[in-house]
């Protein structure tokens, strides 16, 4: 490989440009990654700042924020993905033409962030869509987004045309769009992410690693306690377990001991 580069540099000095199809293709794609103009929360403000003159994402060829998923290469999931918003995000991703990339921007999109234990926020967009680059931060600074874009460009540089899933006659892959169910998000009628509960499916791995479900559940040792799903829980009504929720009981106990101490 170093030989190749030396020869190439030598040839370029002579005015001859030699490249490989891979490099040429990758150079074309990495230099015009068009993001989708699509923001969910405060991270989107940083994303907008990245697009303006001070940080100037145009230096990386990504200044064309497209308003349509059909024209976009990159989805920047900028902000908190609520369970109500998740189906729309997955549908937008499915509507993007290959090759397509996802940057999960900020703590919320990556893991749920401060809302992780809330009832209504997805614990990471990678439960439904494979993510190429994750950015930590709350929200990440524009420099972090630029670094993520450079990381993505480095990943694109390493792609081989005969390996990528979207080249040739291989069929585009649609990711199942979750539907609204009685207890949470469902895929094909099966509950995958209950409201107030831990997800019942594992996250997708990055496209570099096959974008399969990793099979690693969060806290697999825990019985999922949504009352309708768990036979061990005695039900008072279809949506309510008998008695007081354990964390409330603990809070009450704590309050009681504090009051008796005072």
């Amino acid at each position, binding site marked *: 490989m170093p030989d190749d580069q030396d020869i190439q540099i030598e040839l370029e000095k002579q005015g001859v440009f030699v490249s490989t199809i891979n490099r040429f293709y990758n150079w074309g794609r990495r230099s015009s990654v068009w993001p989708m103009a699509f923001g969910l929360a405060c991270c989107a403000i940083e994303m907008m700042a990245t697009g303006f003159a001070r940080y100037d994402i145009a230096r990386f060829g990504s200044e064309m924020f497209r308003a349509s998923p059909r024209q976009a290469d990159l989805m920047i999931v900028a902000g908190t993905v609520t369970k109500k918003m998740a189906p729309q995000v997955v549908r937008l991703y499915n509507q993007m033409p290959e090759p397509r990339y996802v940057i999960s921007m900020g703590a919320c999109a990556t893991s749920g962030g401060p809302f992780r234990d809330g009832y209504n926020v997805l614990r990471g967009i990678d439960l439904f869509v494979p993510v190429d680059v994750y950015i930590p931060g709350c929200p990440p600074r524009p420099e972090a987004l630029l670094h993520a874009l450079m990381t993505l460009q480095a990943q694109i540089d390493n792609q081989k045309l005969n390996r990528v899933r979207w080249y040739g006659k291989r069929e585009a892959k649609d990711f199942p769009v979750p539907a*609204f169910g009685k*207890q949470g998000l469902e895929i094909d009628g099966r509950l995958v992410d209950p409201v107030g509960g831990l997800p019942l499916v594992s996250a997708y791995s990055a496209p570099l690693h096959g974008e399969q479900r990793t099979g690693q559940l969060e806290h697999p040792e825990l019985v999922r306690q949504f009352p309708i799903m768990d036979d061990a829980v005695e039900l008072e009504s279809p949506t309510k377990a008998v008695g007081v929720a354990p964390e409330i009981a603990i809070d*009450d106990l704590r309050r009681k001991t504090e009051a008796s101490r005072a």
Partner: protein
Amino acid sequence: MPSMSVAELRERLMRDQPGALAPVRPKTHAATNGHASEESASRPRGRKVEEGPVDLLATDDTVVLAERIADVALYLRDTLGYQLLSNITAVDYLADGVIELVYHFYHLDGGPPIVIKTRVPREQAVVPSLTALWPGADLQEREAFDLYGVHFPGHPYLKRVYMWDEFEGYPMRKDFPKQGDKYLSDEEE
């Protein structure tokens, strides 16, 4: 700037809207056990209040009966001039079996808000709607219905607003089942 103290409001309500005020324990002196057990016969409540020294339902604010909420609101608007219904929210007192609705009214000339509360049992949380009188109450009542399961008879379109229509259950009620890292650490202790 108009400013009305709670005591003055209660006095005027007692005079002009007889029977609208609900009996309530004041916050200033701690409720004794005997006092609490007297009232517990008349109201559904959990074990906590009889045993625990903390009385969550004690308040210094104005608590009115749910069925009189429209009368009181109109009185605030037309007689006292508190025309702006700024906020409606619900509070779940799980151990006491009570859902409390809190209304904030503002005078258009400025000044602090007047707070009106009403309490209904959790199992049958029904409060008359104020949407016919204040169109701005529409979404806030829908929110209380969506997240706390409070019903507002008289509301023109009482449907879920944050959760999807297919969803069952009221996520902000305290007995809504939850799992997560926060609750794991509690269990380990």
